[in-house]
């Protein structure tokens, strides 16, 4: 089973919808330990990205992801712009010219995206950032695919791992970003970046799963 161009387009639209629905929730999380703009910023970014996506309707998967990334960079405003922008642009570079993605292509693209985030944000796992959701997710994805799991099952595992990673940020002390100014007091709050990363993975998984269900 592979991920098609249409899957990617639908997933990106689902991400934009999920971010819009969770805009206030993400902003509330950010209000607790940051500057109360994560949901607002990402929503603005993905709204802009959707406009860009329309113009890329005929492009390959790489071009779609890159276009979304560039739109995020220019319009998010907060640190999420460069970070998610880099994430999607690097994924796009890894998927350049591709019309569909097999499991290993998806893992490679996510790896490239995460590496981009690490380089951009200089953060590591355990710093209470989006990486705490993304790292476990890609590990779970790789593991599930390695065991021969179907792509939808593997994506589900990845989303579960992201959720677990997201919750695991609660007791962490923030070491990066605005939340790190709070020091110990960032403990006990769920990281908004890890939350949005989880929501993004969930949107992708749900989209791919429901499209498979409709087809089969």
């Amino acid at each position, binding site marked *: 089973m592979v991920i098609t161009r249409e899957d990617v387009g639908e997933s990106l639209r689902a991400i934009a919808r999920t971010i819009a629905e969770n805009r206030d929730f993400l902003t509330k999380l950010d209000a607790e330990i940051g500057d109360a703009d994560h949901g607002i910023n990402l929503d603005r970014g993905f709204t802009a990205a959707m406009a860009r996506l329309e113009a890329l309707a005929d492009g390959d998967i790489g071009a779609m992801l890159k276009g979304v990334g560039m739109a995020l960079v220019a319009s998010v405003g907060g640190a999420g712009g460069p970070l998610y922008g880099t994430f999607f642009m690097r994924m796009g570079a890894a998927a350049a010219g591709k019309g569909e993605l097999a499991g290993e292509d998806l893992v490679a693209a996510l790896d490239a995206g995460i590496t981009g985030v690490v380089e951009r944000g200089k953060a590591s796992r355990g710093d209470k950032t989006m990486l705490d959701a993304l790292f476990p997710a890609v590990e779970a994805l790789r593991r599930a695919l390695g065991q021969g799991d179907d792509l939808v099952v593997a994506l589900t595992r990845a989303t579960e791992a992201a959720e677990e990673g997201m919750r695991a940020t*609660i007791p962490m002390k923030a070491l990066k970003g605005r939340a790190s100014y709070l020091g110990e007091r960032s403990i006990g709050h769920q990281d908004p970046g890890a939350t949005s990363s989880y929501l993004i993975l969930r949107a992708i998984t749900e989209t791919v799963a429901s499209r498979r269900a409709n087809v089969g």
Partner: protein
Amino acid sequence: MLVSHSRRLAEGARELAEQVAQGKVAVFAVGGLDDGTVGTNPEAIQSALEVADNPAGTLVLMDLGSAILGAEMALEALPEDKRARVRLSEAPFVEGAVAAAAQLAAGAPLAEAAAEAAGALAPKAGQLGVVIPQAPATVAVAGREATVTVRNPMGLHARPAARFVREAARFACDISVRNLTRGAGPVSAKSANAVALLDARRGDQIAIAAHGAEAEQALSALVELVASGFGEVDLPPPRQAAPARLEATSGSLAGIPASPGYAIGPAHLVTRVTRPVEVRRVDDLEAEGRRFTNALAAARAEVAKLRRATEDRLGVYEAAIFDVHALFLDDPEMVIPVKQAIAEERLNAEAAWQRQVELLAARYQATDNPVLRARAADVRDVGARVLSHLTEGRAPAVVAPRHPVVLVAADLAPSEVASLDPALVLAICTASGGPTAHAAILARRLGVPAVVGLGPALLETGEGVLLAVDGTRGTVVVDPSPETRTWIAARREGWLVRHAEAAAGRFQPARTRDGRRVEVAANAGSLADVREAVAQGAEGIGLLRTEFLFLDRQSEPGEEEQVAAYRAIFEALGGLAAVIRTFDIGGDKPVPYLDLPKEANPFLGQRGLRLGLAVPALLKSQLRAILRAGSGRAIRIMFPMVTTAREVEQARALLEQANVELAAEGCAAAVVQTGAMVEVPSLALLAPKVTPLVDFFSIGTNDLAQYTLAADRGNPATAGLADALHPAVLALIQKVVEAGHQAAKWVGVCGEVGGEPLAIPLLLGLGVDELSMNAAAIPGAKAVIRRLDYRETLRLAEEALAAEGPAEVRALVRRSLPWLDAD
């Protein structure tokens, strides 16, 4: 170029910079998004950089967060030649902008202006009299190395290692140490553990290397320190076997360890003049009522202040203790009877209040639950505060010694402990009190060693008499001998260093030096415990005792009440996992609503899961409550006191029933792991038969030791026998681990030994995957694991299994890992 989130800030900074630039420097301001909101647009920065590009180069100053990331992105997008002319500056935004503009206007090259900008906080710091650490890069000195022989008898271990590290920390440069004699290192001179692990003994040659600023000074200071033998060369060499604990002599007192650590210092007696409260008849009832209300209001304001101060100092969970105090002040059960007594008995406010405080405190004290009993101290604490306002018209005096002391008191109130200055209070010793008291929790969070329950003899200590306090084991020596003084002082230094390192690393997972990960979880018996566990770095709850819901009440808890309690705990845990143990009641614990027959031998009677299966409706309602609270989550349920596989089958059938019922009621399923608590030897021996029925085992070493060795821990005559480090108990642990691992099930230990430093290497070596312990032990346990070598623990466990008894096992561990005993 000034890059900010806020366009107005960027413009404002440009205005200031242009004042000094006098038209000789082009200043660009980039900030905000196109629609005027706060944010950073990397594309806008990129186009500004294109416009600004000039042969002399562009210096970019940024405020924070996305401004920095955005500038970096913009820079990467520039063509190579232009990129080379841009320099991103780490300088403070406003001060740096002004300094750089002034330098550039005066004709300085870009690099010089950048350096000036980076140091731009210095004038402000100078004005305010603050010293800022020197940037190491400014005085680059080539690396140097010096060799020196260790002369002191102890070698570069606990105390000397701590002094070495403290000395090294005075210098900004990178310092590393190698043990040339033993070929160990190099390690950073700024880690006491790493330095101690070099195992540099008397006569060993060590090499110290320093790179960076002040390298020369650092080297000479450290070489001097080592060469001088840390000032201890002339002391007599230590005896063959250093005492493992404070000697029990006529001058020693045994109490309950309440906060670990070591201290020595003069006693300072906190005596409270408890004048009897005056009882009088009042005429102006309205005025008396007002006096009482005013005193309550004053106390309320103080408690709120104390709460804020505690939150700032210790954290939000510790501060919550004072929420309880605030609740007491508003509690109608406290307030209304006092108002009635004033109005109806014409009793003065202080007498009426005091009577009510004592009544409520006595009710707490009369319960069987030690946690509730400890609340009596909170009631009296609040009581004294209000009373002080009524009688003195002011807040109670705070304990404020003028020089470092060991505090001695009958008991200390939570508010007194919260207000203590750890720099002046070396340790706390009380005659009464228990380890679950709020005062004890606060002492642990403050890092002040404390021993409680030392008995009335403690109060006979004279003011200023020297006390040696071992808060780890609960011993206090009055007027200690010179050997004891030296011993405790050495322990204290090592402990201080380790305590700081352990606390700093408590939120990181624990891995041995060779990479084996061990999960460190907490035992908890209340929501407050769970919160303390999270604050201490627990990776989950390895044992949630649910008896708090079932004991000390007249009727059984309803399902809704239980759901709310479990939900609150899940929420406090965030995403961390919890092993919820179903009720372990019966035995010696009275349960009025169950009408249990009196048993001659309750510990061998109907307790734990045996009782649960005898009252299936109650067990099922607990399982339903757990499943409902855990709906949509991953949860772990554990059954206590399992003896046979059959019991687990029955318990699982009940769980399945509960699941089916809830599914029919439309409740989303929880992902459930089930486990058996291993306390009965038969279960350990037959573990392979039970593994197909469970997802995990957790070993309750306290009861397993009692049942294996047929010895009661509560009976002084047999307590010594019931030792969980007995090779027989270790062999049973090994059996459970083997059975579990063969079926890919995880095995934890949730008894007291889980957090005992001497036991940790053995449990690791036996293959245990998870250690669950009291929250306070977690930072220390993680630190111990990080110093262990898994392969070494395998060998150690093997030797321990072959040992004769627990004393030999402990001696073996002490011998193999001498540093373990150094705290």
